[in-house]
């Protein structure tokens, strides 16, 4: 994945464990400054080894760290170089979800080596949103779950995110808490 994803993981780990511990996490993951250059592409194996090293430091299973990385990404992207893009994608949760696909498609022009996910709004009403997630990768479902939770928090929507079932394509349900 692009180095920008590693950057978010590094920021999360430093927030949790501090700069000093980060150095040993990075050493364990076998990465240097270079892997954190946003515009450079690295094999997914590098990404996995960074996330695993952070998970080790967290003392939690990798899925837990992926979930938290998803939540953190929304916050990270909202503050960083991507804040304009995040802002342009919508002022409300439904609008943002509708634009997720277009967002990744449009970013692809700048990041040609990205393997982009696809998001499709299947249903949308007053009780929530059902979103279909398609990807060439597997194993990132908890990451997506965290991302969607992060989005709910970004738009201050009270509610929960869940996998609809184990079927493919993967569906997520964003349920609003009844007022």
């Amino acid at each position, binding site marked *: 994945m692009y180095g920008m994803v590693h950057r978010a993981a590094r920021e999360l780990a430093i927030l949790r464990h501090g700069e000093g511990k980060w150095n040993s996490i990075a050493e364990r993951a076998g990465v240097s400054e270079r892997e954190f250059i946003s*515009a450079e592409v690295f094999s997914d194996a590098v990404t996995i080894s960074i996330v695993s090293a952070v998970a080790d430091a967290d003392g939690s299973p990798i899925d837990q760290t992926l979930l938290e990385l998803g939540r953190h990404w929304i916050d990270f992207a909202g503050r960083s*170089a991507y804040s*304009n893009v995040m802002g*342009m*994608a919508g002022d409300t949760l439904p609008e943002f979800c509708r634009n997720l696909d277009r967002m990744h498609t449009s970013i692809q*022009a*700048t990041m040609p080596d990205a393997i982009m996910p696809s998001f499709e709004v299947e249903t949308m009403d007053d009780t929530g949103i059902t979103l279909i997630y398609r990807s060439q990768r597997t194993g990132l479902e908890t990451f997506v779950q965290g991302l969607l939770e992060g989005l709910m928090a970004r738009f201050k929507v009270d509610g929960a995110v869940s996998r609809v079932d184990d079927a493919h394509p993967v569906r997520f349900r964003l349920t609003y808490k009844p007022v």
Partner: protein
Amino acid sequence: MSPVLSLSTDEISGLFPGYVRLSALGVIEAVGPVLTRRTKGSLIGRPFMDCVEVMRPRGISNFDDLRTCRGQLIIRCPEAAGIVLKGVVLQRDDHFYICAGLSVDVSGQSSGSYRFEDFSMADSTLETFLAADLRRNLLIEAQDLATSLTEARNRAEAADKAKSRFLAEISHEIRTPLNGVIGIADVMAHGELSSEQAGRLKLIRSSGRTLERLLNDLLDLAKLENNRLQLAPVQIDLIAEIRDALGPVEALARVRGLDFIIDLKTNSPDHVIADPIRLRQVLSNLGFNAVKFTQKGSITVSMTRTGDDVAITIADTGPGLTDKAMARLFQRFEQGDKDVSIRYGGSGLGLTLSREFARLMGGDLNVSSVLGMGSRFTVTLPLPPAPPQEAASIASSSQPTLRPTAGAGIRGLVVDDNPANLEILRVMFDAFGIEIDFADGGRAGVEAWRKNRYNLILMDLQMPEMNGLEAISKIRQLEADGDSNEEKTRILIVSADATEEAIAESLAAGADGHLAKPLRPESLFRAVWSLF
């Protein structure tokens, strides 16, 4: 003409996010997402021409002109945050459509105000816009990275400076006791010794000198790193200087059974301007290095001159160097080969320093070598000829011989606040039959002189309360105020600072001479005899 496409409102919005639908009379009936969000519906029901400025084509001032316009339209909408739309006018039934998209400002000034819906699905304006935005931000990241690398480098340099300072300080700390060891060993060498003692003493002295050389190298290195090493160029007799510098090398080469060939016949003028100390240092480093690594064969010294540039080459028939070893040769603390450093010892600083000195003098030091055949080190230096009229004042390196007379009639006083220095001097003076007293500071020195009228004073410079120069001035003043027939006191400054300025300052304060630390019995007595 029947319409080819019949589009829903959503579809029109997707294709022309800035569209405006007008009635036959030019009243706004509907607008696309670009205008909806920015005006919150305030345009609906109003005459189009009241709400916009038509920037292109020029000269459109009423709806009739607009209706018939067939070219590209550029309009500005002041009520929608001044956005600019680009499009064309289409007529459908009794409606008019301004089919428009946003004209985007990619300078980054207003990206916060755009939404994805503002961009047509049918073109790549959004991609272009995002590319501009993302690249700009990635550039900032690259700049941040560069800044943090610069900072890291600055920190490393600061640490390096601190290291050099430490090196300089610790070297000074080591120097005083080391001078003690060497000084006393030198004095003992003049005494009666059994052959076993003499052998051991020789070892102490040569180890001491090795340590001293290393220490000097370290100090020079620290000075170079702090850019504090200054050259003191004077007029020198070049050939005499080279012969002098290489004299000890030649002696050692002969002891080792090597041929030492020195060929300095050139068209070079005798007298040139150079810093003799650094020149000697470079040559003797290269010379000793050549001897050190050459088991059999010869060392050849030659010189050529091109214009003001002099090239002095020291060639040996030693083992030679691999390309890799040559590349590492001038790096600090590196020796061509680790085995070699174990066999021959040495700090590995000599060549680094020699090259730095050569460069400081405006020249360079280079090596060429063939493995198994030997190495050639060539130092090239710009050495302009000295103006002839000043040739008389050449710094002479020929030295007066030691006069082994007993020190009758000399009453000496040593003024120094460091007891280690006092002890060394006492041992040296004892060996030559001169009695001396001590004063442990400038003020005490002046007092002692007032009481006992010594005819020789060795004065340290840096002392608390009253420093050496102040003490000398005081004594000279007391002398001037007193009996003019009385014998004048000879005062020698003893200091580690042997720069020309320091010497000039000492003489100006009234000293008769300057002795550089570390003191050697020979130089001490040469200086003393020259005054009596």
